[in-house]
């Protein structure tokens, strides 16, 4: 802070104190005029301005203005729902800024089919507001929630544009259901298979979470997460909890326009650091020595490159393929306003996410439009229409095989070969394995996959306040959603040419012929609900009730076609990427259709006495089309209880600073659908085919199962015990929950040990059981010191699961306790990876003789053969079972590499005068990464050596024979590097097995987001007709604390630091502004 300003402030403070004490004696009355606004300088309508300790007061008008006569110097309490109450000394001119508070007790929280006051909640429900979501600038809506909501376990797996590879898991239960404006909008859909090495016609089904992934935070009012039995009101399928998204509604005010933008520069989170080419050539030769292979580079070649001979080719493939950074944009424009009888909100947004890889192979962009309009048809009848339209385009490589391998291709490409041939700049050269990574990224040359999605959803609500009974309201909701996904895939035959000769030989093409495929996918949902709610207070008895019925009908249809353009010999030509222009004789098409229906009756009663004793009872009678008539319907009841101890008189006396202390308990049932629909009907399915006469195939049909009339949904019991507390009117607070979910009767085949002659698979029955348990903690603190106000929230979630009954375990025979330990999962908490890592004795092989003399053998056939392949510097492994050799019985477990079971987040945000900031940290532990030297990395096969691997055992003098027992070695962290003949093959246990040094604890803490904003002063802005303006800088993933070994490999994502890995997640630097006028 500027020193002179600080002095001025100090002086005025002193003056104020003096004047204040003087006023105390004078008891003069003053007229206070002022405005109440929120942090964005938006006027707050109807804020209460009250002289402290009296009933004298007023309320702010539509522009936030107020005027009040009070004795000079008194304290005014300014409050409004959803904002923190402020106590300020009355002065003639007051500009009061109220800070929004998401944790306020009287805040309304969106719950299933309604809203509730936070203070009367009995379930475990977290709510987050749009500003907190928007603080993280990313096109991936799931990533924007990371670290912010207790209970949500989120890991970002890759930075591939539009891939939305963030895993989301609620409390370890699984992927939650997503409900937007009262309608379930996450569904199962079909798409082109994304697995390795597939053809464009292969399909897979997946849970579509795009409503969450393609979320535009600026259009969101709030997101609440139902984590316990409170989710069961959504019935079958709600076993993993529910995320409720509520979009912004119109407000009663003058039209107000909001514009916000964000421009960001993204680069991989882990920097590239490799040894120079000349150094690499020597390392490579040294690796060949270790592998007993011929040198790849002659001394003359190395010398020539060291001299820098002009005619030598050196292609830096990494730079040929990577951009310095990717440039991404987000723009959002919204308008809201209205009167008592009609109000509206409309928002439009655009986002794009570009690739860090050059060329036009990868990219993502979307346009979105959200809006609603609410009309009072009659004084007691309101109609609201909500709509959302989203269009997104995602581009990727044509061939998923290439998609998976592009990084491998970069690393294996020979720098001594140019991108194009020597003689023809239009001919891509054949670099290695008949590929060329630059050509792969050129869609003109290699093809593409383009996915275009359009999602259109519409909701119409009618709300009727019954005049004949106070507190009774009826509501009818209808929704119609329609989505279409179009996927176009072109996989081109790409011809490559010999770099030197410019000749293309047979085999120098990526595939035999060009193929084009198109797939259209239509999805529609029709939803209807009628409900009645009753809400009334009878003295201290507060009652609310809800009764409703709903129906959902979903239809999916897919049609796909593909054709080839013919092989060279047939002189066919690639023309355009239009099905009709490829060969009709080489066509392939497919189509499917399916539909599903569900229905349910919903009932809920809440009762509380004086806000102290809280009871909620709910039930759902659910029907599902999947099952046999008579077995389709079931009742799922649940209840929850709460006691607000802080409302008890005795408590208020003892601990007056505790303004809230509530203990909660919830317990309820729902169902998890499983198995396939119509399993109760026996039938024949396509199986095999035969040619009865040349030229025509007959598809075979077979029946391999008996009708399944036994299996139904798994019964799910969700329990939660929690405590919420808050002290000093919100300065400190928190919640703590213990939760448990039991899955009773998950599908399993009865272990009847039937003879093969029965020859039918027994149908699945509801036999197995599993449970998930965990703890969840959230702590917050907020305060204002002068103009500095801040808020800190920390969350942590720990969750683990186990199978408590496995039918097949009954007859399973374990050959040893090791076998049991490795393979049995019954009653075993999950999260561990299969045993595949070895213990390290602490020693390392210092020379060849030591390896040959080792008492522990490294192959199981009892000979020293395995030891002869041991490389100097290799870690000595522990023979845990003492049988004399290292085998699979010597392994131990590590934590897995997936979505970690313990995750934490920390949000620190605040403002000082016109500045605001927010810091969001996210971290996880109980995660390991497999990383480092391996046969898969293919050392010596690749053409780059990451610098950190130079810290390896190596011969003291370049060129010494590594297999001579007299050779001197220099120690290092890694064993001596060795060249392998081809990727995946190895001669040494160092590479073949999962060594202890390859498994690194991936506990990390990451500064996910840092945002610094500056808000321009309103006086200045008014002159240019702007209500408020803010500029900001935002950084994403800038700092990560983790094991130093993981500086080269991202601890969070799927990045394994190896060739063949996926896109890393990005570090971003963003700038942007928000304007309101």
């Amino acid at each position, binding site marked *: 802070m500027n020193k002179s300003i600080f002095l001025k402030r100090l002086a005025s403070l002193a003056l104020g104190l003096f004047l204040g004490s003087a006023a105390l004696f004078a008891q003069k009355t003053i007229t206070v005029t002022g405005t109440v606004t929120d942090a964005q300088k938006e006027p707050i309508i109807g804020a209460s301005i009250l002289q402290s300790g009296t009933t004298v007061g007023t309320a702010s008008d539509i522009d936030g203005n107020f005027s009040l006569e009070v004795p000079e110097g008194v304290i005014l309490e300014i409050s409004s729902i959803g904002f923190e109450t402020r106590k300020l000394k009355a002065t003639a001119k007051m500009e009061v800024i109220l800070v929004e508070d998401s944790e306020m007790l009287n805040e309304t929280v969106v719950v299933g089919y309604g809203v509730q006051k936070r203070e009367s909640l009995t379930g475990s429900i977290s709510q987050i507001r749009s500003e907190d979501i928007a603080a993280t600038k990313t096109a991936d809506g799931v990533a924007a929630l990371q670290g912010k909501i207790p209970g949500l376990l989120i890991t970002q797996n890759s930075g591939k544009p539009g891939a939305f590879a963030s895993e989301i898991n609620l409390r370890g239960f699984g992927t939650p259901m997503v409900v937007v404006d009262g309608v379930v909008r996450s569904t199962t859909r079909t798409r082109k298979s994304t697995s390795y090495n597939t053809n464009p016609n292969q399909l897979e089904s997946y849970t579509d979470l795009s409503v969450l992934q393609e979320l535009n935070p600026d259009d969101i009012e709030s997101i609440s997460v139902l984590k316990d039995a409170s989710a069961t009101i959504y019935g079958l399928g709600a076993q993993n909890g529910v995320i409720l998204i509520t979009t912004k509604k119109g407000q009663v005010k003058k039209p107000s326009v909001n514009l916000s933008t964000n421009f960001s520069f993204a680069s991989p989170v882990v920097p590239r650091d490799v040894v120079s080419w000349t150094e690499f050539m020597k390392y490579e030769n040294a690796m060949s020595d270790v592998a007993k292979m011929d040198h790849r580079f002659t001394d003359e070649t190395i010398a020539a490159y060291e001299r820098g001979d002009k005619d030598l080719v050196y292609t830096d493939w990494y730079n040929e393929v990577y951009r310095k950074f990717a440039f991404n944009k987000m723009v959002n424009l919204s308008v809201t306003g209205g009167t008592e009888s009609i109000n509206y909100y409309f928002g439009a947004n655009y986002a794009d996410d570009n690739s860090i890889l050059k060329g036009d192979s990868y990219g993502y962009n979307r346009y979105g439009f959200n809006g609603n309009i609410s009309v009072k048809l009659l004084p007691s009848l309101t109609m609201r229409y909500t709509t959302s339209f989203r269009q997104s385009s995602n581009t990727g490589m044509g061939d998923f095989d290439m998609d998976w391998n592009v990084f491998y291709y970069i690393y294996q490409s020979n720098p001594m070969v140019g991108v194009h041939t020597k003689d023809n700049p239009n001919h891509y050269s054949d670099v290695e394995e008949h590929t060329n990574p630059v050509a792969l990224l050129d869609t003109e040359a290699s093809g593409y996959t383009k996915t275009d999605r359009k999602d259109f959803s519409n909701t119409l609500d009618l709300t009727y306040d019954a005049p004949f009974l106070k507190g009774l309201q009826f509501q009818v909701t209808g929704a119609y959603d329609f989505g279409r996904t179009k996927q176009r895939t072109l996989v081109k035959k790409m011809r490559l040419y010999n770099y030197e000769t410019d000749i293309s030989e047979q085999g120098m093409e990526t595939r035999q012929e060009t193929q084009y495929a198109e797939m259209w996918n239509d999805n529609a949902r029709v939803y209807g609900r009628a409900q009645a709610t009753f809400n009334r207070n009878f003295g201290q008895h507060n009652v609310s009730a809800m009764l409703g019925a709903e129906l959902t009908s979903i239809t999916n249809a897919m049609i796909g076609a593909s054709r080839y353009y013919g092989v060279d010999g047939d002189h066919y030509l690639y023309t355009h990427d239009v099905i009709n222009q490829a060969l009709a004789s080489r066509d392939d098409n497919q189509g499917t259709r399916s539909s599903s229906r569900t229905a349910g009756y919903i009932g809920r009663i809440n009762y509380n006495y004086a806000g102290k004793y809280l009871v909620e009872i709910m039930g759902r009678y659910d029907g599902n089309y999947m099952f046999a008539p008579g077995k389709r319907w079931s009742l799922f009841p649940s209840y929850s209880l709460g006691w607000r101890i802080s409302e008890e008189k005795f408590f208020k006396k003892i601990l007056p600073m505790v303004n809230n202390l509530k203990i909660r308990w919830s317990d309820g049932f729902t169902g998890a659908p499983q198995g396939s629909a119509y399993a109760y009907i026996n039938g024949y399915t396509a199986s*095999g085919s035969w040619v009865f006469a040349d030229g025509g195939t007959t598809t075979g049909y077979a029946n391999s199962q008996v009708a399944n009339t036994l299996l139904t949904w798994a019964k799910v019991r969700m329990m939660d015990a929690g405590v919420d507390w808050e002290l000093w009117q919100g300065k400190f607070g928190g919640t703590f929950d213990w939760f448990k979910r039991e899955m009773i009767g998950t599908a399993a085949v009865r272990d009847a040990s039937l003879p093969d002659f*029965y020859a039918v698979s027994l149908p699945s029955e509801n036999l197995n059981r599993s449970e998930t348990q965990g703890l969840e903690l959230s702590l917050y603190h907020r305060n204002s010191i002068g103009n500095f106000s801040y808020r800190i929230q920390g969350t942590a979630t720990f969750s683990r699961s186990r199978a408590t009954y496995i039918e097949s375990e009954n007859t399973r025979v374990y050959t040893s306790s090791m076998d049991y330990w490795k393979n049995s999962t019954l009653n075993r908490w999950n999260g561990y990876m299969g045993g595949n890592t070895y213990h390290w004795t602490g020693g390392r092989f210092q020379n060849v003789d030591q390896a040959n003399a080792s008492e522990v053998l490294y192959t199981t056939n009892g000979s020293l053969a395995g030891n002869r392949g041991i490389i100097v510097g290799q870690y000595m492994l522990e023979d845990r079972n003492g049988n004399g050799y290292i085998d699979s019985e010597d392994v131990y477990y590590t934590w897995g590499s997936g979505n970690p079971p313990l995750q934490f987040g920390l949000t620190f945000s605040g403002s000082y005068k016109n500045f605001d900031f927010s810091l969001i940290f996210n971290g996880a532990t109980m995660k390991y990464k497999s990383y480092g030297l391996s046969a898969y990395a293919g050392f010596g096969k690749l053409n780059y050596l990451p610098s950190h691997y130079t810290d390896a055992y190596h011969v003291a003098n370049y060129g010494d024979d590594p297999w001579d027992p007299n050779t001197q070695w220099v120690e290092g962290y890694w064993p001596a590097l060795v060249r392998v003949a081809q990727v995946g093959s190895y001669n040494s246990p160092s590479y073949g097995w999962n060594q202890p040094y390859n498994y690194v604890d991936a506990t990390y803490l990451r500064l996910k987001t840092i945002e610094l904003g500056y808000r321009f002063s309103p006086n200045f802005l008014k002159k240019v007709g702007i209500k408020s303006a803010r500029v900001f800088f935002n950084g994403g993933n800038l700092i990560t604390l983790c094991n130093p070994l993981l500086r080269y490999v991202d601890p969070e994502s799927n990045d394994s630091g190896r060739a063949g890995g996926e896109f890393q997640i990005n570090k971003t630097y963003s700038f942007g502004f928000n304007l309101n006028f």
Partner: protein
Amino acid sequence: MKMKKIFKYILIAGLSFGLVSCDKFFDSMEGDLSKVAAEDLQSSENGMLALLANLYSNLPGMSMSDNDKYQMFGNTARDVPDYKNTTPGFWDYKTIRAVHKFMEVVENAYKEGSIDEAKKDAYMGEALFIRACYYFANVRTHGGIPIVEKALDDEYTPGEENPGLYYPRKTEKESWDWVLDQFDKAIELLPLSQGSKSLRANRYTAYAMKARAALWAASESTYWDRAALNGSYVAVQKKLTYMEPSYAPAYYKQAIDAAEAVISSGVYSLYGANPSDINAAIGNLTDLFQTFQYNEGIFGRSYKTGDSETTNGTDKWVPNQFAVGYTGTGAANYAATLNLADEYDYYDAADTRKHVSGKIQTLVDGDENDYMTDPQTEFTKDKVARYKHYKSVQEPFLLKDARFQAWVMYPGCTFRGITVYMEGGMVKPDGSVSVYPNSDAAGSGNIGVEKGDDIYYPFGGAGSNNSAFMGLLTDKNSNNRNSYCFSPRKFLDQNSANQYVQSPYYDIRYAEVLLTYAEAVVESKQGDEAKAKQYLNDIRHRAGFKDDVDLTIDNILHEWKVEFAFENKWSNVLYRRRGFYNPEHISNQEEGTLGKKLTLIPMVDLSGEKAEWIFLRSLPMTATAAWGYSGNLRFNNEDYYAQIPNYVNNKIEPNNK
């Protein structure tokens, strides 16, 4: 107010409408679109054909990729009888149930009147034939088997004892007898023809298959003592895995009668019998495997599905040189051994066409039992003179049996208009030798040497990765190498470089029926010896030979090898005749003798006046890597039987305990 009331009623109606029509909401749906009901299948012949298609597609051994055809191949290690690795799916009660379900559908269709009695009999005959084929595969791999003759769907009640689900094993002899009897029942019902150019089984298919099964039972009985099992095994005591020579004559009789029924019908014949010259023979023998020849093919599988992307899988067998367009599909997966090449006789001359021993002459002194295990060190400069020098790389193969030329790819042969390189080294002009010179994938060791007007390469041709032995040393364990100098040509598309090869696969050719007759006669002294000799020589004459050979078991075994190379038949011979009978070593190439898989390394010799070629006999570098499926070079008599799957739950006796 009125409107409000109406609204109220609408709401109340809305809330309650579901209650009255709960299930109707679901019943009005389109239902299950992923399955077809049995009623829909039995109401049309196409429905029954769809069920049949499934049954045929699961027939054991009816495909190009069936494992036990690799007997003659170099790169795969099918050297010992080991059913664990070769016969998944032979214990296939699921498909047997499918046959029974098909029989139910046929019965129902007949009852409903959608087919007449003749149709019903034809379908039933086909079903019995297919079921007999499954049980034939089962008994030959497992010994005596449980025989289930109906679907057991209704026999299971949860939590009960379910005695109706359990079937004991019959003795091996009972099982064989039952299988042969089933073929007879099928023969009674099956039509004489299923129409022209149909690949469905007819009466003669059943006769031919019965002949094969009867010969199997007969051979196993005759040679039982070559691999008799330990008498302490319960399965042997109960005769579940037991045969004896006294059973043989009756089985041979059945084989002779069934074969004779096919032969005397006149329906089938050899394709291209009595060719005018060797080239005509080569042409006929090539054509035979390009399109299904219905006069010779009694039973088989077509890959001409109407979909141009269907392949019989043999596209991978081309030498590396022909691997087109894409990497990683495993070109040159299989190579043929020198042992097989030696087996094919020579014609004494193109006009007389009498047969001469097929052993390829490599050494001047004629000691063709001499071979090298490490040619890189063993073959030295001073040994060059010991080798017989040829004028061209293909010279040693030009007068070989037409079947060799039509069905085997050899050094210097022409395939799809391209010369096939299969060379592995060079004697340089200065006399120094080099075998497999630094043959990494980049081909850096393949350096051409000028001689006269031509350039000669150690690997035959210029460039990288196109020669048989290229990359062998650094890639020993890879399948993608022709480490054996010869490779199969029989099933490949001869003209087009199409990835999708659709040449047919014959399960039973007429030639097999002829040879079955001949073998049964020789072994049993039953039947007509003159006919048997004629049948044996008919096969040879089709290959261009003009002379006759005697009716001996050796001559018959020779024909099994050369006529049916790559067709799964030779390994069947070794199984049924208990032919792998040396307990210490791998034996495969010749019945009952030690066998080592040899290769030939053609090398150009530039040390003389003109370029000439010599041929080294050698164990290829991959030999040790390829031997022994689980590193175990021994095999035991027990290996002739597969383990009984799941015998505890099946409540039956296991084998070998």
